[in-house]
């Protein structure tokens, strides 16, 4: 039995019927074909599915699609028009990704962090990534990528090293 929902995803309004048990991540990936949001686990532990709902980072595997009725959702595809959000730039400049699988979730978690704490310390960044697992980078360059974005968003000089 479908339930009608209205949701704005990456600025676009959708009116859709969803099965109550459909997880938000499946709605995004399969119904809307926004496959940039990934699934890395089944216990809400890895953060690969992190998106923004009304500006806050959430795990889209731990929300039902019906729960975002009336909400505004931002996925990695909607973070910027041309892939030039300072975080996206930071991840590229600082080699903050390898296989790319955890990357959208990392970037969205970092977006939440920088909204609430524009100038985080290294420890604050590491703490903010508590809900996101990366197996490739050892997190070193992810931390640097987020520092890069923080600097850039505050209009500081960023090193293109």
């Amino acid at each position: 039995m479908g339930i009608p929902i209205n949701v704005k995803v990456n600025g676009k309004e959708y009116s859709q019927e969803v099965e109550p048990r459909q997880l938000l991540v499946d709605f995004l990936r399969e119904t809307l074909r926004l496959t940039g949001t990934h699934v890395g686990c089944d216990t809400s532990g890895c953060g690969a599915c992190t998106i923004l709902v009304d500006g806050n980072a959430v795990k889209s595997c731990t929300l039902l699609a019906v729960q975002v009725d009336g909400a505004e959702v931002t996925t990695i595809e909607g973070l910027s028009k041309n892939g030039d959000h300072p975080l996206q730039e930071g991840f590229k400049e600082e080699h903050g990704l390898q296989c790319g699988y955890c990357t959208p979730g990392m970037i969205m978690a970092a977006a939440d962090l920088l909204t609430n704490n524009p100038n985080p310390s290294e420890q604050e960044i590491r703490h903010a990534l508590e809900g996101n697992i990366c197996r490739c980078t050892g997190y070193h360059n992810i931390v640097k990528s987020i520092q890069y974005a923080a600097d850039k968003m505050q209009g500081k000089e960023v090193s293109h090293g």
Partner: protein
Amino acid sequence: MGSIIGSSVKRVEDKRFITGKGNYTDDIQLQGMTYAYIIRSPFAHAKILSINTEEAKNAEGVVAVFTGKDIADSGVGGVPCGWQVNFRNGDTMKEPLHPLLVVNKARHQGDGVVMVIAETKEIAKDAAELVEIEYEELPAVTDAKQAMEAGQPLVHDDCPNNLSFDWELGDKAATDAAFANAHHVTTLEFTNQRVIPNAMEPRSAIGHFEPATDKYTLYTTSQNPHLTRLLLSAFVLGLPEHKVRVVAPDVGGGFGSKIFHYAEEALVIWASKALGVPIKWTAERSESFVTDAHGRDHVSKSEMAFDADGKMIGLRSSTAANMGAYLSTFAPAVPTYLHGTLLQGLYTTPAIYIEVYGVFTNTTAVDAYRGAGRPEATYLLERLIDKAALEMNMDPAELRIKNLIPPFDGVNQPGYETKVALTYDSGNYEPTIRRAMEMVGYEDFRKEQKEARENGKYLGIGFSAYIEACGIAPSAVVGALGARAGLFESAQVRIQPTGKVSVYVGSHSHGQGHETTFAQIVADKLGVGVEDVEIVHGDSEAVAFGMGTYGSRSLAVGGSAIVKSVEKVLEKGAKIAAHKLEASEDDLEFANGQWTVKGTDKSIGFGDVALTAYVPHDYPQGLEPGLDFSSFYDPANFTYPYGCHICVVEIDPDTGKVEVKRFIACDDVGNVINPMIVDGQIHGGLAQGIGQALLEGAIYDESGQLLNASYMDYAMPRADDFPMFETDRTVTPCPHNPLGVKGAGEAGCIGSTPAVVNAVMDALSPFGIKDLEMPLTPERVWRAMHSNGSN
């Protein structure tokens, strides 16, 4: 040549990943696709008494339900093993059938029993609950050493003592003699615990048979699509290989676990043929935990003999290597040829002997995991040395340096012949160790440590000096050692008429940045821009052949194949240029993308030559048009990266929690194409190696249940578990490949683990503790600190 080689070019592949446009297997949606769900044995060891699929078959939306019997009745056997290691007495390796779905007996938790295929994944999962399977649980065995004992449950009835093979290497008599004359012997009995790879992308496979063309397409999360095609065609399903296309699109990490050919890949192809529809299977993480091949799991007793001067005079080791319930693709090679052969380390030990038992247990199969055998060898050596230093009251750094193999470049001095069947290519080990010591400030640290101890703070420092065999591998050598495949690589360099370059290479990239590094090589050699080079990989239809990515081989072997093709391009290009410039080829030089007649200003650009090759109006007589070359490169030897890692820890005496305060890695991976990418590879390896030391480890109960089969229980390293890493390099080029590169993918994971454990033992030395099992959990450390009443 230009400066592109050796520069940190930003990755060209990043744009799609940071914008959510990567194309991973589970992202692929085909017309009319159906979904498979695999019902797996909840028991580690059980007879299957009956299976009733009727209700599931009749459920709305269910397309088919298959059992192991259906597969077997179609004449399909199992998944093959790609490496044969026989018994010492000459008996053939025991290689029991590894069925796609089991028929009578499940041999590990997660063994596939029934496949349900439905119109949606929801229906498939719901229908799976309608299948009735009656099991009779059997006693299980999970520990390799225990499994060899008499009276233990047999995983396979025809494998006495659960042995698949036993193996030895080295001179036993000479080694025993060295021990007989030893001034000091250090012994270590330990488990190099089982770890679970956990690439962040769960495995996935889509099978698509198209009756109109008789073509099979498999999309899969693989590190080596061509090998999967070969195994699938020739060994599992008996398909015509030219009708089989295997695509490994973007793959979300592998770390070894996606090298192997898995049953699900064959199942979706087999069922797609049977049903005529595309079928997707994607693992849930809890499935990944029990079906992705695991790593390590060695139980060893190792001993090192020293003379009165602290010189190593002998090493011997006996290892029970857990194979799991079946032999995975490369499993027998890991504890043998990738482990025993590395026991020389960086040291001059004159007598070495190792024996290895390959043992079946009721656990998930074990195979290569980042480093594959070499981390186990390094752990064994570097823990022994540290323990010996403690016992002999010597400085652990000096004990290592005292025993180092002297420098050799492999050109003017020959390679170093080890006592365990390898010839090291080139090495200058002491400067690397010295540099790492300088980075950490060794002498100052000892002072700081002393003061800290007086204040009740427990700091420790740990060394690890490693060497690995990479660039796998000379085909003839590995063939003689039991490999059932060659280990060359292929690359095609196609110059387009406009001078743009397409490169088709067999080395798959799943995080390593090949699309950038390989483009740098080609751009540098041809004098074109990195943006003018496209690297194509991962599709058996586009790329001639490939042996895939593992063993830190992509650059050393795949990169060398690219160089060979580029050289052929330049050779033919020179003929065309000579014709156009009306000069002799011998009078031409190629630099910065153009051929110039030496000593003149007459020149022709690479683009003009490319266009001429495809518009051959004014063209050398007898020369074929086109500018497109393929090469196969089979390495002359392994490559031997090495390095020194130093870890500094602090232990909270109240809780036993270990904090990694600093981690220094000075590695020598030969020449470096892209330092940024090499550093990234090192960082990631360090995290995995430190993870094994402190956090990770599979825990089985007596019945064979994996107790920590989720991220709620299996401690994956997270961002706040690490400091920023401190890395540096020395450069000793590889003498036998055209790029002088050695490989960097596994170094971090190989060197780091013993450095952490040694650091913890150093911190705990006031408590008289010499050894603890990994992972060094807070409880284990705390318990050790309180075991002898020292506190």
